[in-house]
């Protein structure tokens, strides 16, 4: 059913247990890595992390490679297309949102006071 060569690729890190350890560590890391996000960045951050889960494309590619029969080939093609949409769409949308920040090196939260004086 499945050749040894193919099987090997799936076992990048062998065993569910080591993956479980990695999962738990990654879960904590995900929680710690974003902290005190200013509200103007909530949407770009959501969109950026949305692009990152597009990495499911890797899974779609691995599984598509072994598809056989019309049903599997059709589903695999759909999976590859959808995953690519996720990555590319997510990245481009995020970049469009963040384009607006370019050339502005001030951090928005800290200097609300100063510009107010400029107006006066």
């Amino acid at each position, binding site marked *: 059913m499945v050749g040894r060569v193919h099987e090997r690729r*799936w076992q*990048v890190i062998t065993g569910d247990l080591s993956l479980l350890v990695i999962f738990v560590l990654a879960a904590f890391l995900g929680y710690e890595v974003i902290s005190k996000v200013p509200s103007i960045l909530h949407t770009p951050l959501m969109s950026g*992390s949305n692009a990152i889960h597009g*990495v499911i494309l890797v899974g779609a590619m691995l599984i598509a490679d072994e598809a056989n029969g019309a049903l599997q080939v059709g589903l695999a093609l759909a999976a590859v297309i959808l995953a690519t*949409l996720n990555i590319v769409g997510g990245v481009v949308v995020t970049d469009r949102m963040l384009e607006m920040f370019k050339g502005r090196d001030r951090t928005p939260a800290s200097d609300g006071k100063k510009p107010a004086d400029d107006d006066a």
Partner: protein
Amino acid sequence: MIAATLPNNALVACYLVSTVCFIVALKALSSPRRARWGNLIGIGGMVVAVGITAVDSHAGPHGIIPIGMTVGLVIAVPTARLVRMTAMPQLVAVFNGVGGAAAALVSILTFLRVQLGHPSSLHLLEILLGLAIGATSFAGSMVAFAKLQEVMTGRPITYPCQHLVNAALGLGIIGVGVWVIADPHLAGMVIVAVLSLSLGAGICLPVGGADTPVLISLLNSLTGLAVAADGFALNNLVLVVAGTLVGTSGALLTKMMSDAMGRSLPNIILGGLPEAGSTKELSGGSRTVRSADAADIGTLLAYSRRVMIVPGYGLAVAQAQHTVVELAKLLEGRGVEVAYAIHPVAGRMPGHMNVLLAEADVPYEALDELDDANTKFPAADVSLVVGANDVVNPAARSDPASPLYGMPILDVDRSANVVFLKRSMRPGFSGVDNALLYDPKTVLLFGDAKDSLTKLVAAVRAA
């Protein structure tokens, strides 16, 4: 077809590089200075992960891998580039949804591949989790898209026994899942998929339009978890790490967003906003509003000393950001102090309004966030509210019975005069009435935000 399979170590090394890129990307995306760079690092991580997988695998039967990637690219780039900035929130929902769908399909394909090989119960559980979570996220995202795109009503959709129906669907998924684990068969997988799609839609229907951004963030986090489950099913490092990172950081982001809106997450998911009818004295029949013509308001603005502009979604849909800037410049030319007060959720998502105004070349320094703005309102002669409503509703401060109670608002009611540019008397996105509209110091100018602003520009010129 192409290269021979790589040594395992090279593959692990590349996956490690790519996961580190994702971590750095998330970190950088939470700081305004490095956000754009962070997105680039994320792209780098993606290129490494996908690239090494491409080198290590073949093109698939009939070349479906390169074909699928090309098709995806050709659809995604123009869509993401050309859609108007105002439609960004629903676009994020769509791109999240397709990720969930891809995760569900990968689960089904993994199942088909291992079905006859006596898979372990644990392996089947991983596959089922990927399918159920992915399908739920897909259906939910599509409902969120439909609400934001106004294909369907943005109001909460409720029906009797809603929570019971959802609970039944959830139990159904678990029941059929156990059946599939005991006796792996495709029909069971399909039933799980259908039940999960229904559950996703069922969870999202009662969520009010104004809460939809929080919902999308939650679904984003769910898709991450679906990807992680597929990572377990495929024994793949990069899927597990990237999916989990998005899952937990997304959960935290969801909480931050609901906090910014002064809403609790269970309240958003379970409750929806109470029906507008439950806020008493909503249609207090005799209350009247004062509307004025553009000339009067233009004069008021032209002879003020301090004007606060409060832009909202109405400004965004009317594409009036350039006109409002024109008005502001004109006033500044007359020596009027002008500042923009930006509510954290002005527009439809946090940060949405900042992006729109930046597009119209409003300098960053002219945008006041909530706290700064609220210190300025008492000294302002006029607050000009352009297409915003819920974010200036004083009931959020004063009326514990209001569904908006507790949401941080812009205190425009503390300025000397309030001018609302509104399309109609329709309440805001939340469906809650705003008493400030009936306040004696409030005047209204009805019409499309862009038309009204253009009239005001002319009126200020004439004043």
